[in-house]
């Protein structure tokens, strides 16, 4: 059975050596939070993930969610107790606003926690994950009264949240939404319609479920401009703040699916349910996108968490499984065969996994710090710049991290050989669980379109500049440093390649809009691999300096340098192929008739 050990040492490295928190010292969330506190928090979070959540992961996969005839869903054994432990210890409010009972700690810490929860038990992590998204929407767009009413119980975890966008006829294209919202005389609305595939739509973890629902008012304009956002609680809150009368929303079915079996995927029926408008009418989609942006980062982190646990288990297996001899002659002659970790191809799979996981973790935390600056920094200019960077990175993190999650989970299975394919070994669950992350929160194809169609051109290219100038200032800061040329030179070349490819895509798509869609996926991957090269070069520089200064963490820093070299030698060259593919344009994709593709 798989085990999970949280990467506390890597978190320590990233938080204390890599992130450069001194630069962010003006952040209110950091004034009362030292490196020691962060270590202590992550240690305790790791303990919860490793000892409470991970042991339930296989149970959840086995038992799934049961729905009874009254539309009540029961989660697998142990989930409700684990959720209670999680909430009582205060984890649900880690980064939430202190005014509503949160701890107000920095977002990047929330990402570390989220990685651990997802690695340990991705289905479990879905419930708090959705609540956080809903909290964010209400915090940002709700009225004061709505904030007072909903945020404290949601931050404490007594109530959970959902997001209701999808309907049978509309997934990506939300302009097709049909759910109706009729104004009532008391200022509330009556919501009617069917939503499908609603995660956490029904369960037995909490006293109440706060559904955020997209719907149309009677005279709303057609398409995406006519969508409004409503709070539709399962139980209508009473004036004392407790859950009261049952609302007319019910779970009509729980879907059977490939993975994430303990995360309830529900069909929700609204039959004149009482709903409360959030913000103004017809602003729903833009408001929901607040949630979508944070949720997209967290979806990326789901991919990362599952990649991380898959990679760990593959590496342990490869050290134990004896099969064949090293091509260079027996390396462990006292054993009947060498462990498979001696074989270059097995090492290739493990190193790819490690380079992707640690590179992505660095990029995720770096972006998490920018997100913290965007939300909480006192200086508006710093907030604006950080906001640009986050906006640019959001589709990249969502799509690349989840593609990587799938890739690494599959590599991990491959390292296990036949055992990997056998259910009881437990690693095929990672492959199944991670697969959805490439689809929900906007498919990865749609993320790539967002990058090319919106982010590339937004604000006169300012978003793009926020990336290039950050990489350039890193390059300038280490140029000429002993031992850095092997990283800086290829980084500089690949950044040039990315810049020229961006310009090319821009030109091509101003000539023909189909070019944007044709280039998008390859362009996103090119961007991501370049961003990871920056992360690895930065980690290499830090590690080299630390080793020169006689750091206490020799092994970690030596490993970082070795994996950075691997990344530059065996992974970054993929960008050459991607550049060529992007340059080839749309023509060959569009040549065949629709009925012959």
């Amino acid at each position, binding site marked *: 059975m798989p085990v999970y*050990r949280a990467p*506390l*040492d890597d978190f320590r490295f990233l938080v204390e050596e890599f992130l450069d928190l001194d630069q962010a010292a003006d952040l209110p969330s950091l004034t*009362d*939070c*030292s490196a*020691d*506190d962060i*270590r*202590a*928090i992550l*240690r*305790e979070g*790791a*303990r*919860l993930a*490793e000892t*409470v959540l991970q042991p339930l992961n296989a149970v959840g996969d086995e038992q799934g969610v049961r729905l009874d005839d009254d539309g009540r869903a029961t989660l697998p054994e142990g989930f409700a107790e684990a959720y209670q*432990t999680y909430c*009582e*210890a*205060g*984890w649900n*409010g*880690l980064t939430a606003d202190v005014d509503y009972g949160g*701890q107000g700690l920095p977002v990047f810490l929330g990402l570390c926690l989220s990685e651990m929860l997802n690695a340990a038990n991705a289905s479990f992590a879905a419930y708090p994950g959705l609540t956080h998204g809903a909290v964010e929407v209400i915090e940002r767009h709700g009225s004061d009264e709505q904030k007072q009413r909903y945020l404290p119980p949601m931050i404490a975890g007594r109530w959970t949240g959902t997001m209701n966008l999808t309907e049978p006829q509309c997934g990506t294209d939300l302009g097709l939404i049909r759910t109706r919202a009729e104004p009532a005389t008391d200022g509330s609305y009556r919501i009617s319609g069917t939503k499908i595939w609603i995660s956490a739509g029904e369960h037995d973890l909490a006293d109440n479920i706060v559904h955020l629902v997209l719907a149309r008012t009677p005279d709303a304009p057609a398409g995406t401009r006519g969508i409004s956002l409503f709070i539709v609680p399962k139980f209508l809150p009473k004036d004392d703040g407790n859950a009261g009368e049952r609302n007319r929303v019910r779970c009509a079915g729980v879907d059977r699916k490939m993975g994430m079996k303990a995360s309830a995927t529900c069909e929700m029926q609204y039959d004149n349910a009482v709903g409360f408008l959030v913000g103004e009418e017809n602003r729903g989609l833009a408001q929901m996108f607040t949630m979508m942006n944070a949720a997209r980062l967290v979806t990326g982190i789901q991919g990362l968490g599952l990649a991380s646990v898959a990679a760990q288990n593959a590496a342990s297996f490869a050290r134990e499984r004896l099969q064949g001899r090293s091509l260079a002659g027996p390396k462990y002659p006292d054993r009947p065969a060498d462990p498979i970790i001696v074989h270059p191809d097995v090492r290739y799979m493990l190193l790819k996994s490690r380079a992707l996981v640690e590179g992505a973790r660095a990029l995720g935390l770096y972006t998490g710090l920018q997100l913290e600056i965007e939300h909480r920094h006192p200086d508006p200019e710093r907030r604006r710049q950080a906001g640009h960077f986050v906006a640019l990175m959001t589709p990249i993190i969502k799509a690349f991290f989840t593609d990587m999650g799938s890739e690494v989970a599959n590599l991990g299975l491959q390292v296990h050989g036949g055992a990997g394919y056998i259910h009881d070994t437990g690693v095929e669950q990672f492959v199944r669980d991670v697969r959805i992350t490439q689809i929900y929160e906007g498919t990865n194809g749609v993320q790539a379109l967002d990058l090319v169609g919106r982010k590339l051109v937004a604000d006169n290219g300012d978003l793009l500049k926020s990336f290039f100038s950050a990489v350039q200032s890193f390059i300038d800061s280490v140029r000429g440093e002993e031992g850095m040329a092997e990283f800086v030179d290829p980084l500089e070349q690949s950044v040039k390649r990315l810049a020229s490819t961006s310009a090319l895509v821009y030109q091509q798509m101003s000539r023909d809009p189909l070019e944007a869609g044709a280039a998008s996926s390859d362009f996103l991957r090119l961007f991501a691999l370049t961003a990871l090269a920056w992360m690895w070069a930065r980690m290499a520089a830090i590690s080299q300096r630390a080793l020169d200064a006689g750091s*206490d*963490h*020799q*092994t*970690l820093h030596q490993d970082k340098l070795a994996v950075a070299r691997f990344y530059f030698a065996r992974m970054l060259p993929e960008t050459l192929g991607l550049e060529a593919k992007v340059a080839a344009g749309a023509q060959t994709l569009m040549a065949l008739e629709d009925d012959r593709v």
Partner: protein
Amino acid sequence: MKILVPIKRVVDYNVRVRVKSDGSGVETEGVKMSINPFDEIALEEALRIRERGEAEEVIVASIGGTDVQQQLRTGLAMGADRAIHVETETAPQPLTVARILLKLIERESPGIVFLGKQAIDDDCNQTAQMLAALWDRPQATFASRVELADGKATVAREVDAGLETIEIELPAVMSSDLRLNEPRFVKLPDIMKAKRKPLDVIAIADLGVEQGAGFEMLAFEPPPKRGGGKVVGSVAELVDELKNRGLL
């Protein structure tokens, strides 16, 4: 009444311990360190006694380099009222630990000193017993249930034959066994609050404890690999086999 709970920083029980390549010790770089699990159980028991109103204060103490403050902070986050860090760079052996604790007892006059029965790194299982002798007070080791009344403690102890229940007069030394309780999870807000609880640092020299090494570590090596098993056909063959190997 005060309860003093000495805690030790050890390699986490989940970590697969590796011996350093030069045999000078075990690898601790980048390795997760935790409160010794038995000490954590002792602390949990002390907190429960205080929560029942049978003690006023729980003090955690640890001996070692500045790193042990991490474990002391965890102890404070679990609910201890204050912490004492006895600072020394050399890892003290059980007798020295007992002598140091005796000095802390003289300062604090606790009603109970609650230790773990052993540390999972060296598995000595000596400190509690030595401390009771030095202090000249009763001991109840391997505790699996503790009840207090009228200045006495009734303690169920896990012994080879099962459970043995004894009554001792306080002040006394106790040591926890595995089944005494299940330690609580630390609450996030308590981690932040723990920062504001007092943590006193005392240099070991200021305690005037005699520190001489009782024994010297010569080398560390991993346990030998287990040889293959053998299936025997009969009891007689088993006995022969054991005799041949000098085991009977």
